[in-house]
C-alpha cells in the first residue's frame, strides 16, 4: 500500500498538551516539516518560551533549550553566535513572551540582525495562565484582567509586532500569516520555508507571526475561534509580508 501521508520525523510521538482547537499543533507541525524538508533535522537547535508552548522541547525532535519568560531571542543569540552560521536556530514564542516581557530582547535581536528565525504565535491572550490580557489583545476583546473588554484608556492599545520590526535594519524577512483557514495554513508554511531559507542564506533576522486561536480562553468553540482569527484579528493584524530583503 502506498503511503500518502506521514507525520514529520521532526516531531516526537509525545502526546501534546494543547487544547482542542488550538493552532499551536499546526504551527509546530509546519515548523517541523519545513526544517525536515530543508534537510536540517540533525543540525538545528530550538528555543522554547514560557507560556503555552513551554513544553515545545517535548515535541520538537531536535536539540532544544527552554528559555526564561521573554528571553528566547537572547538565548537564541547565545546559541547561534557560538555554534556558527551553519546550524539552524529558531525561537518559538507567544505574544506575552515576545511582545510584552520580552520586547527588549526581540527588538534588539532584530536590530542586531541575529541570523535566526522566530515563530511568533499571536493569539491575543495569555493562554497558560488562564486568559489574562495580552499586549496583542484586541480593543473590546474580553480577558480575565479586562473583563469588560480591552479599553485603550485603561488597558492601552494592541502592539503590532510585524509593523514595528519591519522598520529595523538587520531584519531580513517579516511576514504575518493567519492559521484560521486552509489557505492561511498553506501560506504559513511558505512563509516559514522562506524565513528558514533566508537564515540558511545568512540574510539576517527572520520572523513569522501566526495569528492563532485560543478557544479555551476566548470561551469559543474551535470553529468560532477560527472565524474570530479570520474576521476580527485580521482587521487589526493584516496578514502580509512586511519586510523582505532579497
Amino acid at each position: 500500500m502506498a503511503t500518502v501521508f506521514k507525520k514529520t520525523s521532526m516531531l516526537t510521538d509525545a502526546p501534546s498538551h494543547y487544547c482542542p482547537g488550538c493552532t499551536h499543533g499546526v504551527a509546530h507541525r509546519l515548523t517541523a516539516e519545513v526544517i525536515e524538508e530543508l534537510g536540517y533535522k540533525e543540525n538545528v537547535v530550538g528555543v522554547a518560551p514560557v507560556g503555552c508552548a513551554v513544553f515545545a522541547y517535548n515535541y520538537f525532535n531536535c536539540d532544544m533549550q527552554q528559555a526564561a519568560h521573554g528571553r528566547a531571542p537572547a538565548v537564541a543569540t547565545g546559541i547561534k553566535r557560538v555554534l556558527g552560521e551553519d546550524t539552524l536556530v529558531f525561537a518559538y514564542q507567544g505574544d506575552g513572551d515576545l511582545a510584552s516581557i520580552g520586547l527588549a530582547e526581540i527588538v534588539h535581536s532584530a536590530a542586531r540582525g541575529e541570523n535566526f528565525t522566530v515563530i511568533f504565535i499571536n493569539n491575543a491572550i495569555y493562554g497558560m495562565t488562564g486568559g489574562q490580557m495580552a499586549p496583542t489583545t484586541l480593543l473590546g476583546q474580553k480577558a480575565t484582567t479586562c473583563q469588560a473588554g480591552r479599553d485603550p484608556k485603561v488597558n492601552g492599545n494592541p502592539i503590532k509586532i510585524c509593523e514595528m520590526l519591519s522598520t529595523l535594519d538587520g531584519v531580513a524577512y517579516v511576514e504575518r500569516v493567519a492559521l484560521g483557514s486552509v489557505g492561511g495554513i498553506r501560506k504559513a508554511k511558505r512563509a516559514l520555508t522562506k524565513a528558514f531559507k533566508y537564515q540558511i542564506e545568512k540574510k539576517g533576522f527572520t520572523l513569522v507571526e501566526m495569528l492563532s486561536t485560543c478557544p479555551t480562553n476566548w470561551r469559543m468553540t474551535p470553529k468560532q475561534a477560527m472565524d474570530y482569527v479570520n474576521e476580527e484579528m485580521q482587521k487589526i493584524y493584516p496578514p502580509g509580508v512586511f519586510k523582505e530583503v532579497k
Partner: protein
Amino acid sequence: MKVLMKGNEAIAEAAIRGGCRAFFGYPITPQNEIPEYMSCRMPQVGGVFIQSESEVAAINMVYGAAGAGARAMTSSSSPGISLKQEGISYICGAELPCVIVNMVRCGPGLGGIQPGQGDYFQAVKGGGHGDYRMLTYGPSTVQEAVDIIYDAFDKADEYRVPVMILGDGMLGQIMEAVEIPPMKDPATFPKKEWATTGKGYGDTRRIINSLYIKPDELEEVTNRLFDKYKIMAEREVMAENYMTDDAEIIITAYGTVGRIAKSAVNILREEGIKAGLLRPITLYPFPEKEYKKLAQRKDVKMFYCFELSMGQMVEDVRLSVDGKKPTLFYGRTGGNVISPEDIVKAVKSEVK
C-alpha cells in the same frame, strides 16, 4: 614575567587564557574595562563578544551559549547583578557551567560607585528564586583573582554550576603587577555530551531545561544539585590562615578588606598583640571547618569580622563559630573603605 595591569583587564585576559570564548555584557561602573577589553580581545581568539541590550539579555545569552557548549561569561556590578538573578536561577536549575564576575559597588538601589561588600548574601545564599548555590570566590588581590578565574571555567564544567567571582570596585580598578598564566588549549577541555550543538536528533537529542512539573522529579533534581554542593564543600574550600597559629584574636575578612586586615595584623603584632587573620577565599562553600578549628582552641579569645557592609559574612562566621567564642563586627558602608588603622583601633579597644 609580571606585567602591570588594571584588575578588570587582568581578569578579562585570565578568563580568555582559561578558555572563555563567549562574553556578553552591559556597561556599568566599576567593571567597564572587562567588556571593553573583551570587545577587542575576543575576535583575536575567535571568540564571541556582544554588548547586550541589558544585563537580563546578557545572562540569557550566557545561558544559550553555555547550553550550546561554550565557555561563556558575563560581568557586571551590583545593580546589574540584581538584574541577572532570574537568569542565574535558570542557569543553576538547568545545570549550566559559566562564570559571572561581580565588581561590587554600594547599594541599596543605585547606591554609589565606590567599593562595597553588600552583595555577599545575594552571592552565597542564592540571589534569585529557588534552592540553589554558586561556587563563589572572594579574591583579595589582582593576582589571586587572575589565578581563580583562570581555573574557574574548569570548576564550572566539572560541577556544571555557575562560578561567581565576588570582587569589588577596588579590585577592579587597582593596578598591580601580575603574572598572567599561559593560554589553555581548548582541545584539552572535557567534552560536553549534554550540550545542544544542533547535532542531536531523536534518541540523541539534548534538552536544556529547568522545568519539572512533577514534585518528585523536581525534588530529585534539587537533591542532585545539593549533592554536588556537598562535594564542592569537601573539595573546593579555600581559606588563608595568616599568623593564626598562636593568635588570640582572630580577625576575619574577605576580598580587598582581607588584604587590608593583613596589614592590620602586622601592625598589631608589632605592638605585641597576638592577632591573626582567617581570610575565606571561597565564600560558598564557606570555610566553616577553619573557623571551627580556631573556635575550639583555648587560646583564641574572640573573632572580629570586618566588612564593607552592615554585617553579612559575619552571620556565616557566627554559624561556624557556633557560640564558642564571642564574634564582633565592624563595618563601613557607602563606599567608605576600612583602613588598617580602623581595624587596629577596633581590636585594641577590645584588648585592655
